[in-house]
């Protein structure tokens, strides 16, 4: 299996800063598992075990998306299209039917300018005790039923919760 020619990669003349960063980096672990997973070499499930999301966390996410969409005065398909979501994903989010995938949460965090890490916690993808977030999620999940236009108090509840979701 001789080496075969590829077009050589181009490098800048000065890589000193990058080399300095490489040397300073904490390389306690660099291994990845893609090929190992494909070849059945992962002996145990080494990844973080997600804990099941609380219904409060999913309800808070559902309410966040509903309120945010109505705050933008957008129909579901318009909101989905504007923020790079599948319509089905948006419908699932708003109904708290399934645990949303991390990719969907990432899109949402960019769209609403909130912490992706905190959305991961609400959905149960990350284990992290945050009493303030839990309290705010419970309060928000218990706020009134959605109507077509956000009332003043719903609008206030939405903005209070978004503030809690900032880093």
């Amino acid at each position, binding site marked *: *299996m*001789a*080496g*075969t*020619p*590829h*077009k*050589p*990669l*181009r*490098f800048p003349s000065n*890589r000193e*800063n*990058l*080399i300095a*960063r*490489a*040397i300073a*980096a*904490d*390389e*306690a*672990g*660099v*291994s*990845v*598992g*893609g*090929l*190992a*997973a*494909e*070849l059945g*070499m*992962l*002996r145990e*499930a*080494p*990844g*973080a*075990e*997600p804990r099941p999301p609380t219904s409060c966390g999913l309800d808070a996410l559902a309410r966040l998306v509903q309120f945010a969409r109505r705050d933008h005065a957008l129909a579901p398909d318009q909101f989905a299209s504007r923020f*790079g979501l599948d319509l089905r994903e948006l419908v699932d989010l708003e109904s708290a039917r399934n645990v949303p995938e*991390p*990719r969907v*949460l*990432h*899109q949402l965090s*960019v769209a609403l300018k909130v912490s992706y890490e905190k959305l*991961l916690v609400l959905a149960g*993808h*990350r284990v992290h005790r945050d009493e303030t977030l839990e309290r705010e999620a419970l309060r928000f999940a218990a706020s009134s039923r959605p109507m077509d236009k956000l009332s003043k108090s719903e609008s206030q509840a939405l903005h209070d919760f978004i503030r809690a979701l900032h880093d």
Partner: protein
Amino acid sequence: MSTHATKLKHVATGKLVDAELHDSLSLDDLLDAEALWAPAKIQIARELLNRSVPRSEWPQSLHWNWAEKAITLKPYAPGPFSAYRLFGLRAEERWQGLLLGCCVGHPTRLAPVGRDLVYVEFVETAPWNWQPSGIGQGPLFKGTGLQLVELAVRWSEDLDFRGRVGLHSLPQADSFYRGACGMSDLGPDPKYRQLRYFELDESHARTFLEEN
């Protein structure tokens, strides 16, 4: 095969040593590295056992045996129009680290979704560059990991993928990809035994290469 001069830090002396980035290796080179690394891995395993280090703290790739998997690696052989390319970093006439990238079949999950990226199938540093918990071994050289990732990012640029890279990290490497490499953590992936999936988008790739 082409090489590019670079440096690593020899930890014990603090001195920079000459090294080379290799951007077109073959599976033979992977097996050569494995032949060199396997005895060092066995030695580490022996120390871990002797010192009763809890299994959960062992290096998570310690038991991987690429020689045993050699037959199954044939589809991954690099070559013209191969989807795969093998990169390495060499110093003191020994492989210090290798990275296997794939440029087909792994679309971006970050916006813009569905574009091409270089997926890192495999990256390993030589066992003498590890710092396994509980046996008092420090790394011989530092600087391999980030420079291997740099090769994947540059390949991605060369393919017109704008530096986009994706990978599934082993848990012990999560902080390296999140921190030093600046990649976005998209969380556990149930299709890959809950390994966390990381992705470098175009903007962060430019930052990584210091082109911002």
